[in-house]
């Protein structure tokens, strides 16, 4: 049973517009959430994270929103740029040192 779900396998967005990637989780013990970005033939690279004590964290063009009651988080990228085309993984962990669980990923295509 998937504890971290990314229900959109792919997403296409026009350059300059906002990209919104969604993630749902089922384990209420998760309290730390991360987004990773992966280019082909490279390992995932850390993008941004958020802990459950916050509902928003922003870093430049990237903002992550957390809705604990809905067990939902989203990553907003604005404005979207061609270099943002990649696979984005949502991940979650619990404070007591549990492993980090990854979602299946969403492939983002930024269209010129």
């Amino acid at each position, binding site marked *: 049973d998937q504890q971290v779900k990314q229900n959109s396998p792919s997403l296409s967005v026009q350059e300059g517009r906002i990209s919104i990637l969604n993630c749902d989780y089922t384990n209420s013990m998760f309290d730390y959430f991360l987004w990773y970005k992966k280019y082909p033939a490279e390992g995932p690279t850390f993008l941004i994270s958020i802990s459950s004590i916050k509902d928003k964290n922003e870093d430049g063009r990237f903002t992550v929103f957390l809705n604990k009651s809905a067990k939902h988080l989203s990553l907003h990228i604005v404005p979207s740029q061609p270099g943002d085309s990649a696979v984005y993984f949502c991940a979650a962990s619990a*404070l007591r040192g549990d492993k980090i669980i990854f979602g299946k990923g969403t492939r983002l295509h930024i269209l010129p």
Partner: protein
Amino acid sequence: DTEVTQTPKHLVMGMTNKKSLKCEQHMGHRAMYWYKQKAKKPPELMFVYSYEKLSINESVPSRFSPECPNSSLLNLHLHALQPEDSALYLCASSPSGYSGRAGPDSGANVLTFGAGSRLTVL
């Protein structure tokens, strides 16, 4: 140095071969991880070493044998693999030991991944 280096990048082996995957980091990270990733699937945790001791084994078959010779190196020894073991093997490290959470936003558990070793078992 902010990288995790994995070698080899590609490995093809037969089912009777013995080979090893290597991982190295010089960031002073105290936890190191092996993940396995198959096509269109998320990375799946295999092993975690914390302070050079094996802290998690996710019920991985014994044909995969991890080794942590020191805090900078992590190996994965492979023996008698099956074709279904073909996958991308990712090494990662994080600043703190596996159970050491310095605080919710400390970044202690943020993983830095290597580029991976793509393994094909014939």
